[in-house]
């Protein structure tokens, strides 16, 4: 009985049947996928497990082929693994098949790696980070990514062709890895892969002209404007598109809509007032008489980088699988021609 089960698991016919059904299902499924981008369009931006828990679950009719194909691939991998183990038991007599069986082992590893990455990995796209800023790494609690430096690379016509991000990966306060992230050059660390996606600029304040002082000032978060009698106005925050709701101020978007500053008035280093000032609107009472009558000259921008931060704990195993398959292909090619040169023909079953 056990022997029968084992030989079924090792059977070549089973492999062909599983592979054929999986192929047909994937053919049909790819069309379902293509014509339902609202369900399948975002698959690269999430892990399979994340997708299954959200969109996959909401559309059982459309996603059933997907799960069925996945199950068939797993069965095929089990079949291949058994076939490989079976070969191991007779390796002394059949060592010449090493190439073929490296391909089989590699396939099993790639399937394991892919499902492992899909279950235990994480994906996050378009993580916005400015120079000097730090963001937490999704899927790796306690880890942060800091953008130390950003430089767009432009071609002769001034069009951006690459993004040079110098980044540091920190575990708590400790830098565990530092490197350049640009096209085809990711930061890799323990299954983590950071790649550049795009870059843009954010309005972080304005250059203001103060006619009463006869001077212009750049006012972004942290900047201050000095007035007479030891008074100073410090910008503690800036929102490019602010709105006041229930007494609190929120930022609606990164586009310039209704800009506002959170200002603090200091009198000889002592805070005498703090509050929001919406540019263009009447001034708060506390600021009247100070001579703060700004005219907007131009916005101040900061370049930000958008990074893809994915974690796939299985990627190392997948690479090993890929290397096994490649080596297997080279060995199998060699042995194929060796067999041919001896006139062997496949006449099994």
């Amino acid at each position, binding site marked *: 009985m056990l022997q029968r089960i084992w030989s079924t698991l090792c059977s070549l016919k089973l492999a062909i049947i599983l592979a*054929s059904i999986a192929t047909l299902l994937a053919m049909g499924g790819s069309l379902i996928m293509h014509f339902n981008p609202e369900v*399948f369009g975002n698959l690269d931006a999430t892990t399979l497990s994340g997708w299954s828990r959200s969109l996959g679950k909401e559309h059982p009719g459309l996603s059933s082929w997907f799960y069925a194909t996945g199950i068939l691939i797993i069965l095929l991998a089990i079949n291949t693994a058994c076939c490989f183990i079976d070969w191991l038991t007779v390796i002394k007599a059949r060592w010449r098949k090493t190439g073929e069986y490296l391909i089989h082992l590699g396939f099993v590893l790639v399937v394991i790696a892919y499902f492992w990455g899909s279950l235990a990995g994480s994906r996050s796209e378009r993580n916005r980070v400015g120079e000097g800023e730090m963001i937490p790494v999704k899927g790796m609690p306690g880890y942060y990514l800091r953008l130390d430096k950003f430089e767009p690379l432009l071609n002769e016509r001034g069009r951006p*062709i690459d993004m040079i991000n110098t980044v540091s990966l920190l575990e708590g306060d400790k830098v565990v890895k530092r490197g350049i992230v640009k096209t085809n050059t*990711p930061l890799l660390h323990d299954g983590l*892969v*950071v*790649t550049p996606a795009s870059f843009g600029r954010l309005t972080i304040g304005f250059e203001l002209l103060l006619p009463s002082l006869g001077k212009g000032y750049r006012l972004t978060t942290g900047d201050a404007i000095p007035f007479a009698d030891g008074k100073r106005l410090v910008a503690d925050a800036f929102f490019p598109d602010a709105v006041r709701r229930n007494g609190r101020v929120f930022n609606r978007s990164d586009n310039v809509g209704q800009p506002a500053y959170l200002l603090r008035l200091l009198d000889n280093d002592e805070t005498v007032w703090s509050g929001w000032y919406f540019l263009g609107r009447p001034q708060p009472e506390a600021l009247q008489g100070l001579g703060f009558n700004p005219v907007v000259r131009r916005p101040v921008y900061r370049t930000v980088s958008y990074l893809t931060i994915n974690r796939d704990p299985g990627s190392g195993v997948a690479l090993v699988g890929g290397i096994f*398959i*490649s080596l297997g292909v080279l060995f199998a090619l060699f042995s194929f021609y060796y067999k041919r040169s001896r006139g062997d023909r*496949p006449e099994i079953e």
Partner: protein
Amino acid sequence: MLIFAALPRFGSILIKMMESPAFQSVILKFAFAGYIGATGLYLAHAVGRKPLWLKAAFRIFLIAFGLQTLCLALRWYSAGFLPVTNLFSTQFFFSWALALTYLYFEIRYRIHATGLFVVFLTLLLLGSALPRDPALPPLIPSLDTPLFTWHIIFSFTGYALFAMAFSLGVLYLVQKKLQSDLLPPLATLRKLNEEAIFLGFCLFTLCLILGSIWAHIAWGYYFSWNIKSVWSSIVWLFYAGMCHAKFIRRWQGTGYAWLSIAGFFVVLFTYLGIGLLMQSNHPLE
């Protein structure tokens, strides 16, 4: 002495001249004409059986292939990368891969007119590429990696071998009906078909592995769920299945021939159908 001093200068002038688009256009036209001439002679030999025609056909094919290879090398040298990023370049490269496949089978097995379907495809691709703009496009940084270069080389050589398997499959079925002495015996056709499938599978496997590594470092994942990648996996699974089907007696010969034909349609859909019928977000679409 003076001659030796002048040699490097002469060399650089020669390379400059060969790099000019006008020169390349002329040799490409010669290559095209050579392929047509060789095809005609192969066909004539298949019917008339004159050894001289065969010899001439092979020589002319070799010269035409040499010219196309020279043109490819010059374009690669001028660009600094394998130019396969626009329609002219992909057609040009695929036609070269098909010609190479034919040459391999011709030199190894003397298949003569048996492999001409692949040469027809070469002619079709090269012929439709010739009127197009051969200008070398600038390389975008994400394609500037040897992973991409080898991904493309293995993909087109793999496809070319699948095309060869298709034509051998068709001829197997024809020969089974006709039993003609114009075609090689069934056993030879079967053997060649199996070899084309196995070689094609090996090259296509390397293409997918390099492509996956490239995707991982460029986008942060090694498998993308766009329709082109899904169909590439389907092609791979299909031909992996075929590598096994030859071990099952019932599938040997006729069944295998039909599978080779079906497989080529899967390849055609992956290479052409998706681009023509659907929008894909594969980086090369």
